[in-house]
């Protein structure tokens, strides 16, 4: 079973994403800010990451950039309320595999993660 890391500063969102993802995947860790996300990525080497953008310390785009620089094979899906066109393009250019805008449906999240492993 593939493993995932959830990165979001909001406890309710981490809880909801965990409930959705654990129907098919194993969530190995949750991070509440950008720096914690980088540490946990290095520690757990998860198969995929769901990554918020608006967070304390490092924002999601900075985290994405650092993870992809060190691990070009990383599978990162952005899950953010800030779905401006320019932001979406920037995330995809930095290496995000998908961009899910909050609020989201469970099926949208599962479809995005399933696609990573097709």
């Amino acid at each position, binding site marked *: 079973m593939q493993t995932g890391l959830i990165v979001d*500063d*909001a*406890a*309710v*969102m981490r*809880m*909801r994403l965990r409930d959705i993802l654990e129907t098919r995947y194993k969530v190995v860790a949750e991070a509440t800010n950008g720096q914690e996300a980088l540490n946990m990525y290095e520690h757990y080497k998860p198969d995929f990451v769901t990554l918020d953008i*608006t*967070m*304390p310390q490092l*924002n999601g785009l900075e985290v994405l950039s650092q993870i992809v620089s060190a691990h070009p094979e990383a599978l990162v899906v952005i899950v*953010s*309320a*800030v*779905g*401006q*066109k*320019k*932001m979406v393009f*920037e995330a995809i250019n930095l290496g995000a595999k998908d961009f899910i*805008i*909050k*609020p989201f449906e469970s099926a949208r999240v599962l479809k995005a993660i399933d696609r990573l492993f097709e």
Partner: protein
Amino acid sequence: MKAEYANIFVNSAYSVFRQEIGAKLSRQSLTRKNAPVPSLPVSIVLGITGAVRGQVVYSMDTAFATSVAKAMVPNKLPHELKSLVNSAVSEIANMITGQASISLAGENQLIHLTPPAVFSGRDMTVDFLAIPTICLGLICEFGRLEINIALTEDGA
């Protein structure tokens, strides 16, 4: 401040409440003031920078905030729910502002949001920006939601 900002936030709030909470908001009032100072005891403050900048301050009473948390994370015990209330209202504010930012940014501009900060009680001390503010009053089955929009365009 552009009056059209009010409609952008109204539409975002309607959409987020419908999708995330299953509640129907209605517009109750629209007033102007000199700063986004909230009038209800629970407040969520978001800063905005980029093509548009300023503050958006959401405000509600405690019962409203608890109802939002109950709707977002149902089936939680009361003590579990209590610890999630601030997170739930922060995330709702983040989603409404985030969705509004899509319209505000348009095709080519970028707007950044600060993480939401929650303040409770009447003793809070927050530095609110002295920017002309539109105060939107919205209402649903949980009570009243106030959105104070204090935004100015870059260079304005």
